[in-house]
């Protein structure tokens, strides 16, 4: 508890750009590494999802990334009376696709910061786009436990398919 601890450098989140060096990134999962290296830009150019990166301010190393896209929920065999009461139907949602941090950041809470940045971005557009929830498909039981800490809940009969309401997120972000 010294009085002048150096302030840790801040983290900056940015849209993935063509000049980003993606070759060094390693989250421990080959498929996610490959996605960042080969497909993230392509998906972005085709409007299939936007990838955001985390870097320390004034540095170039990618410490983590996630992909955001939009989607919609349709109900099967649900009476019209019910869907008519909804503000919009099909219901628009936001989707967090791949989310991963570089192994070098292990234990520093980088995964959490990436998730919060995704939440913040969705919050910013949620009203204009009528988004009420965020979806994520967890890769495995470990990833699922990570998401559940922040309130994500599994869908009936579909245990890796998780949702979180935007109301809970909004309440967390407005609290002082």
């Amino acid at each position: 508890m010294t009085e002048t601890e150096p302030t840790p450098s801040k983290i900056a989140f940015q849209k993935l750009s063509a000049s980003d060096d993606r070759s060094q990134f390693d989250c421990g999962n080959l498929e996610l590494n490959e996605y960042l290296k080969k497909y993230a830009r392509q998906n972005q150019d085709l409007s299939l999802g936007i990838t955001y990166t985390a870097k320390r301010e004034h540095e170039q190393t990618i410490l983590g990334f996630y992909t955001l896209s939009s989607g919609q929920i349709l109900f099967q065999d649900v009476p019209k009376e019910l869907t008519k009461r909804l503000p919009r139907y099909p219901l628009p949602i936001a989707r967090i696709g791949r989310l991963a941090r570089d192994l070098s950041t292990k234990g520093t809470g980088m995964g959490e910061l990436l998730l919060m940045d995704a939440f913040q971005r969705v919050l910013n557009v949620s009203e204009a786009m009528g988004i009420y929830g965020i979806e994520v498909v967890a890769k495995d039981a470990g990833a699922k436990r990570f998401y559940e800490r922040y309130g994500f809940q599994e869908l009936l009969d579909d245990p890796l398919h998780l949702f979180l309401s935007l109301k809970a997120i909004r309440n967390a972000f407005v609290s002082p």
Partner: protein
Amino acid sequence: MTTLEQSKKEEKLDLLLTTESKQRLQQAATLAGLDLSAFALAAALEKADALLTEQDTRVLSRKQAEQFLSLLDTQEPTEALLNATKRYRSSTND
């Protein structure tokens, strides 16, 4: 969603195919009353639309729909979420 492109066609797509494939496409195109390239384009666009819709649309059963709607009413953030938003604020420059 699939409409034959009305606007000006400025792009070209070359593809190699076997004689057998081409004959089959030609037969089907004749049946549909279209020339071969109009038929191939319409069929490919239909497939593309189906895939694009599928990747952004999630279909829920009735039970899942009820659960999903009640889940969207959750107001209360978890302790971890509350703490995480605070840490996010101090780790970034907004």
